[in-house]
């Protein structure tokens, strides 16, 4: 399975990372590299758009945990937006929605 990553700089220290495809053990390293290299620049706001992600496994959650830990060290924030129901459920079950900001708008369906 593939994951396409599109990074758009929309303002000073503000990026939108749009994802297309699936986040699993194969695609997760690529996403991790993208996010961590953005966070390293310090004090960045990174919005991750998951509208086009219909599958994510626990490896994907691991990537967001790494990103969260890295923002604690480097300052900055990662926000998740436009989550599909199935992906959102993962963040809810694991309690990660209590430590990562998640856009409340739920986009439906598979």
């Amino acid at each position: 399975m593939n994951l396409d990553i599109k990074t758009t700089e929309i303002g000073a220290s503000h990026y939108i990372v749009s994802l297309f495809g699936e986040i699993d053990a194969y695609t997760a390293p690529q996403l991790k590299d993208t996010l961590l290299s953005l966070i390293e620049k310090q004090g960045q706001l990174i919005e991750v758009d998951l509208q086009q992600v219909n599958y994510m496994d626990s490896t994907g959650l691991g990537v967001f945990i790494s990103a969260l830990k890295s923002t604690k060290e480097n300052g900055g924030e990662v926000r998740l937006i436009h989550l599909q129901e199935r992906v959102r459920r993962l963040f809810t079950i694991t309690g990660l929605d209590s430590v990562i900001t998640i856009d409340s708008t739920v986009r439906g369906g598979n």
Partner: protein
Amino acid sequence: MENYRYYLKRYIDTQDESALYQAEQLSKLYIQNKISPEEIINKHIQALKDLFPHLPKEIDLSMNFLLETMISYGLAYQEHQSMRKQQLSLRSEMELAANMQQTLLLTETPNIKGLDIGAVSVPAKQLNGDYYHFSTDKNGRFGVAIADVIGKGMPAALAMSMIKYSVDSFSDHHPKPSSLLEKLNRVVENNVEPGMFITMLYGLYNPITEKFMYATAGHEPGFFYDATKNEFTEIEGRGLVLGVSDDTTYQEYELALQDGDIIFLLTDGVTECRIGDRFIERQEVLEVIKHYMHLPAQTLVEKVYKHFERLQEFQLRDDFTLIMIRKQV
């Protein structure tokens, strides 16, 4: 050397079959003495030069060419062999690790008065990322831990041993499930790499109060079967996965068990299994469970496992763990 030259000459002179047979014998000897292919070519060149001192220059040069080719070939072949050896030794180390893990994680299903307990846990690959453990104390209380280490293979297996030993040492005193998770979370947070985490549910059943106390660290919700209502509900409970933040606190939940009530605990290998492009829905898992409800706990969990193993054509994508605890008279 002399032998090679002798038989070579005999063959050239007579084309005698027995000389060929001797060549075969010689090659076995060379293998025993670890003589490389290029050394044999070299012998051949020397023998030729001895026997026919006036060989055409072209033959002579072509022999040098062959020798160089064989030297390079020999080097590449050796490298290939040593990689194969390494691979074999890695594989046997993996097997050792897997065996050791199995021994470590072995847990016996205890006989608890008033409970019928069943459990199945099957790794998708050699090493299992799922963990479950049963314990009992002298007051007859029954502790159950179920966990899923996220991150696969060797690192996950190592993290698992850490979990096992921590749970063993904490659960000796049968603390409240919430405080066990809080302690465990600090151990995990301090010891795993950033992207790794663990989901876990820990529960404690008291046969005197007939209550099941539990706390969950982001673990896939199990099912509760209420026998009086003949109804399944999701086991409620929230909590952050282990290994994210060291000051996480956990909430305590409680289920009062009546005769016939059942608690099902599982890992997301059960609900996240995919058949082709399709996901198994939790509802489907329930349907399969319902189908086997009349069976004893251990038989039931095995039947459910077999069902999904068959659906996935015997190729599990994720570790599969299902535990069932039925309150009985």
